């Protein structure tokens, strides 16, 4: 069985003045063709760094310290930069969080799209332009031909994000990493983009890693979910399983604190304490300081356990089934 992407024990560390930031620390997961994996976690838990690691764009002082990233069985971490470059934007694409910042403000949309075509395909300018136009049409931008010669600032945030998605689609990639692409957008616009992404996975069989901190979005979009906390994946599983029956106390807390899961006007269930600092994090379960069921045992690293088919958890005190 070959997954589109398999990540094994990925660790990405930043060597800063203040110490080593273990932004990603032993992360393993996989995605299959046509599958949407939701990568959920709080701010600073290492989601974005994971995303960048996957396409080899971790910049100094960061570097991949351990692990393998197998793309169709080929280890990306071992590839020379030039071959990696040919993968990027071609077979693996990424969409960034902030639509206002991802497009170069001083280059026209067509330039930014066509250069992507040219980077991976030897085609004429006319052909590149045609492809760009089609991609714009695909993400639902009206009158794409005219819009091609516009500048990013003439677009609203939602449209820019759709341009970014169109750029990601140019080469029909096998894998798209979407890093919170709708966080900055309004509800109605978010819905438009989610609709397009869904269509994409369905129609092209593209594998999708959807990074977000919003459980509700994942609930509606993803097939499987991976919950990150302090650089580690604490729980994975099918969306239905994880959301209905979280095994890790952190997952449970997270779900519990969503307002609509609580009765109106009552106090929300909250996770006490704060998200931890990743600098010089001590060994052991990073969540134990906030965890109600923590014991002395938790000062050791909890191993990954597989309590059910397709599920994995790292916790000594897994929650009871159903909440």
């Amino acid at each position, binding site marked *: 069985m070959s997954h589109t992407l398999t990540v094994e024990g990925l660790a990405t560390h930043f060597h800063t003045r203040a110490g080593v930031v273990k932004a990603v620390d032993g992360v393993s997961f996989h995605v299959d063709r046509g599958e949407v994996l939701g990568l959920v976690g709080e*701010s*600073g838990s290492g989601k974005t760094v994971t995303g960048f690691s996957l396409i080899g764009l971790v910049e100094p002082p960061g570097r991949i310290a351990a692990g393998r990233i197998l793309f169709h069985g080929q280890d990306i971490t071992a590839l020379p930069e030039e071959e990696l470059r040919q993968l990027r934007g071609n077979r693996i694409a990424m969409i960034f969080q902030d639509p206002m910042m991802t497009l170069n403000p001083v280059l026209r949309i067509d330039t930014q799209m066509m250069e992507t075509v040219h980077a991976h395909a030897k085609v004429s300018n006319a052909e590149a332009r045609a492809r760009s136009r089609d991609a714009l049409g695909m993400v639902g931008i009206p009158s794409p031909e005219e819009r091609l010669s516009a500048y990013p600032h003439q677009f609203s945030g939602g449209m820019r994000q759709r341009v970014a998605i169109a750029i990601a689609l140019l080469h029909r990639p096998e894998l798209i990493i979407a890093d919170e692409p709708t966080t900055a957008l309004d509800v109605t616009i978010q819905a438009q983009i989610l609709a397009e992404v869904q269509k994409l996975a369905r129609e092209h069989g593209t594998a999708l890693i959807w990074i977000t901190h919003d459980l509700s979005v994942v609930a509606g979009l993803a097939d499987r979910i991976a919950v990150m906390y302090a650089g580690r994946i604490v729980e994975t599983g099918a969306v239905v399983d994880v959301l209905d029956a979280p095994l890790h106390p952190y997952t449970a807390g997270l779900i519990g604190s969503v307002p609509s899961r609580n009765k109106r006007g009552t106090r929300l269930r909250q996770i006490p304490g*704060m*998200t931890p*600092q*990743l600098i010089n994090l001590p060994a052991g379960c990073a969540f134990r300081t906030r965890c109600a069921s923590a014991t002395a045992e938790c000062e050791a690293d909890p191993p990954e356990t597989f309590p059910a088919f397709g599920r994995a958890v790292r916790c000594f005190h897994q929650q009871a089934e159903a909440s």
Partner: protein
Amino acid sequence: MSTTAGIAREETPFRRFTSEFAESPLAVLGLVIVVIVAVLALAAPFITPQNPYDLAQLDIMDGRLAPGSKSMDGLVFWLGTDDQGRDMLSGIIYGLRISLGVGVGSAIIAGVIGSALGLAAAYFGGKVETAIMRLVDLQLSFPAILVALMILAVLGKGVLNVMLALVLVEWARYARTARGAALVERRREYIEAAECLALPRWRLLAFHLLPNCMPPLIVIGTIQIARAITLEATLSFLGLGVPITEPSLGLLIANGYQYMLSGKYWISFYPGIALLVTIIAINLVGDQLRDVLNPRLKR
């Protein structure tokens, strides 16, 4: 970005700033030189062998002596003398005093005036802003050196006149910077919060807006000091500037320049070195300040 909860030591912004500043050894060296120069300049009357501004202490018969020569009454001129028999060492230290005084003085005055106007323009907006900014545009559309030349031609020489000219030339830069910074800061929510707390306006301007506009002002301040010193030197070189009996470094260089070709290098070489070292040191400090105080370079 992510925050520290458990740091035991109290970290004031100032402490953070100093520790970041100290990261560049070159900048620290610059600061040390600036301090030494400042101390030399302040203590000039107590440490120089001669008061180079007192004509009665000079004797043209000692003029143009090479470094290390002795005067008629036994004084050793370590760096030689100029054409008036002025001890170069004393002259340089006094010159530093004038140059630094002019530079720092004008920068401070211009800074205060300019920042006040800039802040007012940003905070009050409307007509006040238009009026002030038009004035700034007007000022900035003339090259500094020309303005200074004209002013000094009108006012005549003198340390105060040079300072006045420099202030007139420089205030607009501060005003523009202050306004730019204030326009950004003014939109920040902490200003709205202060308004919401019904704090008096002056308090808002002085304790909330101003301190947060300081970093860019400090940066251009240091750079303007260096610029002012250079400009003063250039003006003195062009024959406008400070009085000839109280030469600044620039005037010392200009005086010695005539002797360049005749091999009496020390008359302009040593003041030149002093000027250079001072300006470079100030710029080193300014450079590092720019990096440390620039929020955009912060991760």
